[in-house]
């Protein structure tokens, strides 16, 4: 009779390294709890927060934010776009230590009155080749 081998009661599960609230505060369809963002999603949401926050929006942190919405009201010139791209990269690298190798592509679509933003980055000790994309438009 083979010896009974007691199963190892310790189950090693990989816990989420990063976890954050969802900025949209959408309730989970089943539990009704506010949903969370984890790991790469949390980082992506963080980058999105940084880029979409305007300067002077956060209390006592006047220099915080990429201010991409302000770009909507700037003149459409290549120099401006490049300057904004550079500023955004600096901002993300300074405020989001979990990513590196950041690049930003801004695509102003003047006919549609909108601005497409693409951000490419790699996660430290994690996946590379990540990207976040979103579109900014005027409210009115």
């Amino acid at each position: 009779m083979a010896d009974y081998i007691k199963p190892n009661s310790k189950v090693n599960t990989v816990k989420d390294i990063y976890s954050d609230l969802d900025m949209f505060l959408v309730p989970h369809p089943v539990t009704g709890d506010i949903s969370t963002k984890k790991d790469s999603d949390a980082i992506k949401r963080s980058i999105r927060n940084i880029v979409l926050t305007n300067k002077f929006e956060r209390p006592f942190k006047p220099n915080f934010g990429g201010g991409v919405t302000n770009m909507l009201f700037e003149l459409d010139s290549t120099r401006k776009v490049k300057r904004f791209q550079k500023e955004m990269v600096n901002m993300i690298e300074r405020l989001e230590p979990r990513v590196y190798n950041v690049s930003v592509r801004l695509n102003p679509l003047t006919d549609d009155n909108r601005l497409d933003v693409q951000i490419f980055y790699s996660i430290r000790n994690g996946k590379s080749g990540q990207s976040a994309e979103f579109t900014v438009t005027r409210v009115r």
Partner: protein
Amino acid sequence: MAVNSSNINATDLDFDAIADNIKTYLKGQDKFKDYDFEGSTMSVLIDTLAYATHISGVNTNIAASELFLDSAQIRKNVVSRAKDLGFVPATEQASSSLVNIEFKNILNPDGTTPTTTEMIINRGHRFNTVFDGVTYEYVVEKSVTPTESAGDFLYSDVNLVQGTYVTDSYVFDTQVKNPKFVLSNERVDRARINVSVTSNGITETYKLSTDVSSILATSKVYYTQENEEGFLELYFGDGVLGKGLKDGDVIDVTYIVVDENHADGAKIFSLVENVNGFSSATITTQSISSGGAEKESIESIKFKATKFYTSQNRLVTLNDYKAKVKEYYPNADAVAVWGGEDNNPPEYGKVFVSLKPQNSDYLSDTEKADVQRKLNELNMITVRPVIVDPTLVKIIISTVFKYNDGETTLSKGELEAVVRNAIIKFDDDNLSNFDAIFRHSNLVKAIDESEDSILSNTTNIRLARKHTIKPNFKEGFKVNFGNALYNPHSGHNADSGGITTSTGFYVEGNTTDIQFFDDDGKGNIRRYTLVSGVRSVIDLEAGTIDYASGEISIDAISIASTVNSDTSIEFTLIPAGNDVVALRGSLVDIDVSRISVTGEVDTISSGESSAGVGYTSTSSTSY
């Protein structure tokens, strides 16, 4: 989200500290881990929470602080807290001067002499003065009617007040609850407000209420207070405490708007507007312009309000007198009060008050009489207050400093000016009170620290005190310095006049020889005259000098006149120690006009002198 740590420190006021406390609190859970990353949504929530906590904390802190007189910082709250204690802070005060004005040989074009009524100078009539190169406007405080004699018109004791004359008018309306009339200017001298109320065609003058116990239902009084914006506002009685006003009553308030710069010290005035078409006035100044003061500061209100409350408008203890004198004369730089029993010789039943104005050494006679009259109203029947001039012991400073000319771009003259200013600042900061002590080492330190290139200094002091004589009146007098005097051995420096020098004077019956006092180092004061520059002693025992107590006593002598234009003799002596204390009622003060400053290049530090050869230092006893 299970949070293990239940300790969240909510006492901090600083935004970052609050945010850190929240983050520390969040470390107790593992549901949300991104609170430390600036871009996370958790961080947005933490910032919002910390901001709300910060604002609420600061508001609570300010509100609580402003509730108490000790901790309030905002002027309107300090004034309001003082009001609880019945204390009314002083307003700005205009500088004023007493003058006589005379028009001589005044005739109308038709050859008649104008009447005194035609020649009245009305309240608000403008004069001006040029003081330190700036023109200041003065106005007449009260209308004055001249006396006329053979075409000459004389206006005696006209009070000229610096500032602008303004009238505000209001109409009383009973529909307005608790009506208050705010003056349209901020810098108003409360003591010089005139209020008149016209009711049914009858104009009556109202007075400022000072003591509520004497106010009846018919008393024509008004009250004042400083409002939240710092403006003065007036309000009237309610028919119980002072006469109430009726609908449609017209209130006229005339007042002086105080200039921002006070022309204290001005003494030459001229007419700006003609009087009845005549402008050839001779203006003689009786008392130079004085008494200009700023609105009471927050610190002063905090200090005085509590003292005022303790004294309850009665003068019993010395501190009562101190508080009251400061209230009556806010321009006082220093106030000393002592009982007559402490005087030497004792004068029982008197309280002596000595005060020094900010911009001059002594009060004018009018100001003295005014303060004394006000004190008389509050003091006990058996005690009489006496205002005496402070006795000023002047400290004459002579300093020689060494400096390294390689370490400064300033010239010798500029450095000397820096040192002189450091001495003046030391005087302003340390020697404005009666109980002040002149500490020599502190002054030496202040001089050394006045500029980086200054390496050392030798500072010597002399004490000087004036005594005013009555011309041609035989009397003895004492001059007390209140500090021990230098006398290392009996007979010290007897040949060269001991340690005493004095300004010159003429003795009655001898108008040719200027005479002086000195001492023989053995306790005797000598009187001498100079014959070809050599002392010729006239009286070997003209008085005594007590080196231990610092008192000079001159025997009876009739002095005809003095070299000093103010009929005074000034004694200058060497003190035994370098620190100087002020005896009761006396002030020690550095004589700013007689500061002697000499700069010398330090030959060792500048490399000119090797091994100290040729280095000279100043004697600590030279002057």
